[in-house]
């Protein structure tokens, strides 16, 4: 095991300045992950040429791969930095910000687009209000519950969006994660009452037909969410909806 941890980090001071690479070296100790190492560098902000630099800026919160904050590109793969153990990574460890979202600073990006998409596709179960109506939701079969659970763990981390060749600055494609959420809510016994609105939100320009079925999204999802299954299901539902819109209305 090496005595040092070496990072090559792509840095940028702000959205309109240019990017640059900076190398850092720090003492190795077992058990480090990328975020804990960044924490060390934040306290000792000196690059490998011995120059004092501004501390690296990044996003993290839960430190256990459930909040979705710490996505970045680590040795070419978009993934959660808190769950990337240093001893399992090839060195120098190359860190870059996600490239498909507006950059804020260094490794921090703005994923507001994804939250906007959740709003657009109405990713919720419509209900009267949060007061108790003395009734549960309808029963849900354990098997259906397990499938829904796969999708309800989506932490809006954006790794799938980063990997998707169809999702980029010049395309209107809504991306895989929000389609997964359409599927989640369309499969709920009362959530499906509002199915039509969700389907319309992913039809047409930037909608589901923009997916080229490249499967990259599934490969990088840290939660192994079967996104392409959802895309297939929602694809069929939108086709049926298209026909309904044509003939019924």
């Amino acid at each position, binding site marked *: 095991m090496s005595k040092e941890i070496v990072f090559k980090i792509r840095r940028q*001071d*702000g959205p309109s300045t240019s990017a640059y690479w900076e190398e850092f070296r720090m003492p190795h*100790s077992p*058990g480090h*992950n990328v975020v*804990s*190492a960044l*924490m*060390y560098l*934040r*306290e000792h*902000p000196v690059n490998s040429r011995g120059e*004092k*630099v*501004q501390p690296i*800026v990044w*996003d*993290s*919160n*839960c*430190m*256990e791969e*459930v*909040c979705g*904050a710490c996505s970045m590109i680590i040795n070419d793969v978009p993934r959660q930095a808190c*769950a990337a*153990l240093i001893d*399992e990574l090839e060195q120098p460890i190359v860190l870059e910000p996600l490239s498909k979202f507006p950059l*804020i*600073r260094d490794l*921090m990006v703005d*994923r507001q687009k994804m*939250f906007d998409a*959740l*709003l657009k596709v*109405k*990713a*919720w*179960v419509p*209900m009267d*209000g*949060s*007061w*108790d*109506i*003395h009734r*549960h*939701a309808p*029963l*849900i079969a*354990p098997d259906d*519950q397990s499938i*829904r*659970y796969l999708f*309800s*763990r989506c*932490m*809006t981390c954006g790794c799938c969006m980063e990997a998707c060749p169809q999702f980029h600055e010049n395309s209107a494609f809504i991306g895989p994660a929000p389609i997964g959420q359409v599927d*989640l*809510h369309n499969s709920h016994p009362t959530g499906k009452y509002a199915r039509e609105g969700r389907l319309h939100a992913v039809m047409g320009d930037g909608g589901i037909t923009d997916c080229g079925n490249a499967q990259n999204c599934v490969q990088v999802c840290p939660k192994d969410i079967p996104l392409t299954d959802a895309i297939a299901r929602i694809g069929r539902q939108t086709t049926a909806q298209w026909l309904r819109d044509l003939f019924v209305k």
Partner: protein
Amino acid sequence: MAAKPRIIIVGGGLGGLWATMRVVERGFNVDLFSLFPVKRSHSCCAQGGINAVLDVKGQNDSIHQHIVDTIKGGDYLADQPPIRNLCDEAPGVIRTFDRMGVTFSRTPEGIMDQRLFGGVKNKRTAFAGATTGQQLLYASDEQVRRYEAGGAVTKYESWDFLSLVLDENGVCRGTTAMDLSNMQVREFRADAVIVATGGLALIYGRSTMSSNSTGAPAARVFQQGAKFANGEFIQFHPTGMPGHDKNRLMSEACRGEGGRIWVPRKEGDTRDPLEIPEDERFYFLEEWYPAYGNTVPRDVASRAICRVVRHMKLGIGGKDLVYLDLTHLPREFLETKLGGILEMYRTFFGEDPCERPMQIFPATHYSMGGIWVDFEKDEQTGGMVSVHARNHATSIPGLYAAGECDFAYHGANRLGANSLLSASFSGQVAGDAAVAYVKGLGKDNAELPQSVYDSERKKQEEVNQAVMTSDGGENPFALHRELGDLMREDVFVERSNEGLDRALDGIGKLKERSHRVSLDDQSSWSNQSLSWARQVQDMILLGEVIAKCARMRDECRGSHYKAEFELKIPEGKFEGDPEYAEYKAKWKANNDKWLKHTIVTHTADGPQVDYKPVDLSVLPPDKPRDYR
């Protein structure tokens, strides 16, 4: 009152999101503030579950029993009327979560499953796989997004709440907050403010909590006059996985399924654990507590581990570590029973717990204490009036608190799976209360002149300026590490007055140094060092409150333990024995002296501590806790 009253909610964990829903449903608009997208709030870390009596397991579980368990679990230190409502309304909260679409785990019939959790006899905990908190948070987030789509909620995500704007009568009339992108401070008008800003475990450096759970907002409103209560009561989880960044929670289930805790018998033994023969291992829980062995309650386990490591110097490699060993159990059994938990250890520690003993140590987990809040008692039911402007009101008029940042419900010790419940429920109650308060203000509550807001904003800008230009050489990240080391040394599981005096001394020095920082980041764009340096000052202040409260309380209650003042049940003696009677008399006398809330007020000379009686009207303490 402004033409269109507004309510500000700070915090978008379960507490803040439930408050938001409730305020909107009562017809008011909400400005919702959070340090990051609310969907990433710490509530998503909770794994275990949420308590509510649904009695789906044929155990005749009852709401009364939930009330009793919560009161006793908290060693009687919580006001009891609100606990009644909490437990009464818990099934309704769960039903609502169910209607929101939460993927609760199901029985073969498709109804919600419930499981057993610590400190109780009945299966009362609803859960969603191993990510209950995440599932509850997401469902609440979705409902709030629905209201956002309708225009009733405006989100300010990536904003740091800095202070309240108070009028000349000390009434809360708005806030100031800093945009974490351009670091600009802005003022916001409001007719009422609710803080639901979560826990404060980061004061202990590394903890089981998220890296943003600093308690800073609580410290900020405390400095502006809100009273803080029961600060000394901090829950430590016996089995945390110490890490460089956080001490991740290792579930109690490991001990439940047969995990054994041990250290090498010989001080300074550096052998690989697998090479240490059975008779040279010290299974201290099994030796000291033969009846329960490794499954002794959380506080007992935490104290025993600390004793072995700190007093007997037997920690692994001389460090704050002991083994939690599963390697004697068959892999297949472990994978079925503990799959997700073991996966977590593998992911973050890089070792297989089926092959090698895990290394663990108690970790700071939850704060029972927090911002003091009131309630309106319903004399007829003995509970709290459901909707009333006094509920969850802080000592600053117009300011409400909910969720982990308040001090209610859990007394001296929180039961597992009760805090997702209290966060959601208290959010709802605080939302209702803030609306009732705003409605009660009437028209004579004149609009405040802009100058009041300007002057508070300027004050905060000056604080920023001072931090940015200071060149005293102190590094805020290092200061935080030192604070954590100090708190984990002397304000931890086992406390002594000597140690606490030392801690207070150390904190005093840190406090002074925290005003002499030099920031390595001089940028005015997305400067995380600036907001951190301010939070560190606040953490030091709350650390002082915690240590001071602990110093003053000369007894053992719940999570607060000082060996010097321990009242031990005489061994082998029961009701009827004279020794037991003598013990009981001492226990009563101690309650007369110490069964009271610690109430802290901020003064220029440091925290001032007073006490206040506890409302014990539902279940007065008649006999000591006895788990024999």
